[in-house]
């Protein structure tokens, strides 16, 4: 197994998250994701999918356990070290999280901000290569004609593709997508999923997606992780996963509550 393709890139060890005093987000989660995987996480709302995803780049601090990214602990990282680790993890959000009053180009360029010292980025001193990189990224999502448009002039689907271009410009090893299609129509959703697939297949990025739609999960996912009440209740290859498994994952939510 010397193949670099099976190198673990994300490792969760006994991860526990408690909100407030007694609301359990995650209970004792152990999970290893290897380089180049395309993982979909499915489960009911409130099952802990978002918590799981957001703890990987530490948008959420976990209560117990450890998370390794590229073999380095992100839970223990601080300041610059944490920011450098985050630079290698891109993120796509349900609500796109673009700066609506800024241009598309500037939004895409924010993907590079982590690579710049403060003063250079403050005065918008992005290098020519990075601007070209941003433009190339926009071309890959077919939005090159919108470079100078303001982000809020774009439709929801286009905004999500700008977010994908932003991640592409960031050039991370890992992409975390938190319900990337939840606020989009079915057609646009498929387009966004195809773009994420492109990042995985063409650029070799490891993709982890939270999904609501079983249909999209079955169509695009290669590995399925089922989450219920803060626990991983299923983990397997999509090709080996019968449809009944999804029923199981999405059932019994009430019993556990």
């Amino acid at each position, binding site marked *: 197994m010397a193949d670099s393709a099976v190198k673990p890139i994300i490792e969760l060890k006994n991860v526990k998250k408690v909100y407030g005093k007694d609301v359990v987000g995650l209970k004792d989660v152990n999970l290893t994701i290897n380089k180049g995987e395309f993982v979909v996480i499915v489960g009911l709302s409130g099952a802990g999918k978002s918590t799981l995803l957001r703890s990987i780049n530490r948008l959420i601090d976990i209560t117990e356990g450890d998370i390794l990214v590229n073999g380095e602990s992100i839970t223990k990282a601080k300041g610059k070290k944490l920011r450098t680790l985050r630079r290698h993890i891109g993120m796509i959000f349900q609500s796109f999280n673009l700066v609506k009053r800024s241009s598309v180009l500037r939004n895409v360029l924010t993907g590079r901000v982590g690579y710049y010292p403060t003063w250079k980025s*403050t005065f918008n001193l992005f290098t020519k290569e990075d601007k070209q990189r941003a433009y190339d990224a926009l071309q890959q999502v077919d939005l090159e004609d919108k470079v100078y448009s303001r982000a809020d002039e774009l439709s929801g689907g286009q905004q999500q593709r700008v977010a994908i271009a932003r991640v592409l410009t960031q050039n991370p090893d890992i992409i975390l997508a938190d319900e990337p299609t939840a606020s989009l129509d079915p057609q646009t959703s498929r387009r966004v999923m195809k773009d994420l697939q492109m990042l995985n297949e063409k650029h070799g990025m490891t993709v982890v997606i939270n999904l609501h739609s079983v249909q999209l999960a079955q169509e695009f996912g290669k590995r399925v992780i089922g989450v219920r009440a803060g626990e991983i209740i299923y983990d397997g290859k999509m090709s080996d996963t019968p449809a009944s498994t999804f029923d199981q994952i999405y059932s019994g939510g009430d019993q556990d509550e």
Partner: protein
Amino acid sequence: MSSTEQEKLMTLPKKKLKILNWLWVLLFVAGLFISTNETKTDLGALFANFGEFADIFLQMLHPDWSYLVTVVPLLLETIKMAILGTAIGSVIAFIYSLLIARNIVKNKAVTGILRIIMNIIRTIPDLLLGAIFVAIVGIGPVAGVLALAICTFGIVVKLFYEAIETIDPGPIEALTAVGANKIQIIVFAVLPQVITYFISYCLYAFEINVRASTVLGYIGAGGIGLYLQQTLQIFDYPKTGTIIIVIIIVVVLIDYVSSKSREALMQ
């Protein structure tokens, strides 16, 4: 029987007058009389001396236009004071707002203490500030500028930090995920969302400052107010009239331009 009941439902039921409400009214009226007595307010004096008022007003209606040569440079000084005061106050307010916005600085002790300081500063009226600075830096426009700067700070900081706290948190999250530091998050995620508000608030403070700076001269803090006081003291009403007319024209003009620009900004 049934017809009367129906009638009851058809007509609007009368609101019951409560005795307590009448007691409140009585209390307020009594309070009004007591305070009038206590302060020896005499509305009659206003009407008894109305003739004099009309006289002054008539004199002011014949402004001394030759006085314009003196008034205009003073007015320019007043406007300069307002601009400088607004600029200094806004810059401080800009930084301070970022430090007290709870979605940027998470440490509640820091924001709490800085907010208490802000509230104390905000309670000081502009004329008192002017008097304090006249005592510190002496008579002249510098005192006025400093007083206006602090007034501006008080206005802008409050409005601006509230605007910062209502922004969409999404971009902050996105920038955090990208590995940006605090300043980069502010520059890329926060400022684009609030900068137009900031400019608008500064213009608003400027409108207020132009008006305030005309009065500040009264206590020796520079500007046109000093001459307003002097001409009034020597009963030179035509000159006072000139000053007042010029002030009104300028204030109206600046208010108009400023509010139009603010409207344009918010689109």
